């Protein structure tokens, strides 16, 4: 199973501006310290070995979109944030001339704007040979997608997209066989509710759990998530805020923290945690610092003799083999 992150930013797409890129270039050249590189390969070696990720790259700014690739004929993707545009183009590149007649399964955590805004730009939806299957716990998926593309918000109404659309309402606590995966659903605390999904295939499992708040009043609910995450190979988890922010000034904003992510994953015996839904006001350096702190927190609270929980920090373009 391969996981591809097409959009990992929370709430609002972002992009580094010219000043930030210039700052990275200046720091990278300073790190080179006047060295001469004899080949592009030597430069790449320097970049990969000596420059930290926020200097040599970027976490990216597309809003939520994650592909779950089990190697089957049908595509599976979670959420339709702005990252869906690039996923759509890549899926066409990958399938080439045999791309017609594909089925795209889209699992929706919820219908807030940052999770659906990529759909009007989803090229496969304009191909009449394709089928787009929307899976979600909300009743109003079709109505919300129509509204998003109505005048005066967008010039292309939903009906102009010629793919066949199907809407499949899923229910928490239930499991489904979809596109070669066994898919389980959990209800999450978020404004208007959200849903998390667990995908299992050939003994591998990944959980997509974003826009899910674990607040002070619902601490007795946490065993439910420990059970849902149990022994997963990877959990993709909303780590938008610090714990301090999540339970004070940003309480009831619908998001969680890196600390709660580590605790739940450790309790559930998860192998890998993928930090996701990054705070849009954070630049690459800030996200990276929170990532390093999360790795450290995992070390601090790991039970003696327990297997380490590997902590990853999602970036746009990231591929993870499960």
């Amino acid at each position, binding site marked *: 199973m391969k996981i591809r992150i097409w959009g990992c930013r929370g709430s609002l797409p972002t992009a580094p501006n010219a000043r930030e890129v210039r700052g990275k270039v200046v720091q990278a050249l300073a790190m080179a310290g006047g060295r001469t590189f004899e080949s592009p390969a030597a430069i790449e070696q320097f970049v990969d070995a000596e420059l930290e990720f926020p200097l040599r790259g970027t976490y990216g700014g597309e809003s939520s979109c994650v592909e779950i690739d089990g190697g089957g004929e049908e595509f599976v993707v979670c959420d339709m944030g702005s990252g869906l545009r690039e996923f759509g183009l890549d899926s066409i590149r990958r399938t080439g001339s045999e791309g017609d007649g594909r089925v795209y399964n889209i699992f929706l955590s919820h219908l807030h704007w940052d999770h659906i805004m990529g759909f009007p730009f989803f090229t496969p939806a304009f191909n009449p040979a394709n089928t787009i299957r929307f899976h979600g716990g909300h009743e109003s998926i079709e109505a919300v997608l129509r509204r998003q593309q109505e005048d005066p918000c967008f010039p292309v109404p939903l009906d102009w997209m010629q793919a066949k659309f199907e809407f499949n309402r899923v229910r928490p606590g239930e499991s489904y066989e979809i596109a070669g995966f066994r898919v389980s659903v959990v209800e999450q605390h978020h404004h208007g509710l959200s849903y998390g999904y667990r995908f299992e295939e050939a003994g591998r499992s990944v959980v997509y759990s974003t826009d899910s708040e674990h607040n002070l009043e619902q*601490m007795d609910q946490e065993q439910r998530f420990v059970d849902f995450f149990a022994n997963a190979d990877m959990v993709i988890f909303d780590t938008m805020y*610090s*714990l*301090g922010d999540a339970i004070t000034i940003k309480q009831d904003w619908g998001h969680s923290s890196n*600390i709660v992510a580590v*605790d739940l994953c450790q*309790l559930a015996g998860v192998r890998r945690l993928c930090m996701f839904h990054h705070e849009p006001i954070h630049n690459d350096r800030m996200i990276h610092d929170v990532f390093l702190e*999360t790795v450290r*927190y995992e070390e601090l*609270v790991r039970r003696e003799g327990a297997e380490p929980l590997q902590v990853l920090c999602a970036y746009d373009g990231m591929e993870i083999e499960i």
Partner: protein
Amino acid sequence: MECNTETIDGVAVVHLSGDVDMRSANAFEAQFLPVIESSAGKRVVLDLAGTRYMSSVGLRVIMKAAQAGRQLDVTLALAGPNEDMREIIQISRFDKIFPVHDSVAAALAAE
């Protein structure tokens, strides 16, 4: 996990011993919250010197207690964290919410 409370110069000092995680959080809440609720208008110091580590569940119990105390004009401070606890407090950003003192004596001496 155990909480023992003493009053020093009118300040309720809660000595927490043992780790706080999902297994012990309920007991921590059951022992700590009543101290806050009976300290209207006073200061409360949570002494962490006997705590090796605390997970998010324990930190959230502290926040619940602080929120309950706010309505009663109770002010809460943390004292005596070991190096690991100090890191946990910093990573969770609780150091932006609560005063953190090196010791109970330092907390008592602070205004």
